[in-house]
């Protein structure tokens, strides 16, 4: 099972409506993605917390339908 980049983006937007998201399908196999996410919700959070927030937004799919999602998260720069 795999996911499309659009499905991933939609899931992320549900939790982070303000997010700027760039998703790369690293191998073109619908299973290995990299996502760059910028959202105000990340402000003041540690990197572990930021990634946990994204994993939780993935609704249990991370590590199952979605094998690999490399993350790069940050709050918008002023």
């Amino acid at each position: 099972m795999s996911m499309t980049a659009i499905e991933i983006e939609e899931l992320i937007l549900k939790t982070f409506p303000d997010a700027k998201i760039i998703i790369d399908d690293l191998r073109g196999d619908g299973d290995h993605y990299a996502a760059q996410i910028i959202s105000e919700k990340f402000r003041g959070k540690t990197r572990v917390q930021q990634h946990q927030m994204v994993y939780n937004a993935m609704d249990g799919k991370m590590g199952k339908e979605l094998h690999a999602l490399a993350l790069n998260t940050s709050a918008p720069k002023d």
Partner: protein
Amino acid sequence: MEQNTKEKIESIIKDNEILLFMKGTPVMPQCGFSAAVVGVLSHMGVKFNSVNVLEDAEIREGIKEYSDWPTIPQLYVKNEFVGGCDIIREMHENGELTEYFSQAGINI
């Protein structure tokens, strides 16, 4: 997670200052993400211990719940979860990891 799995995880984390939960072993990693973290730690000259989650299904599932983190590898330093592959790589690239170890009182 069963209580004894949790206790088992807690005790290995406590007993090992720097501990990597990984797939395979440092010499023979079974996954590219685990291999990447081993690469970073070896490059920095950090001495660490590892748990091969492929040999223990209980720990493999348990550690995900314990850390609230859905993937392996996972690096613990002095009882604290530092991150998975992306975070360790990023911290290595921007120099944060060296600082993290020195603040944790670990000499490299």
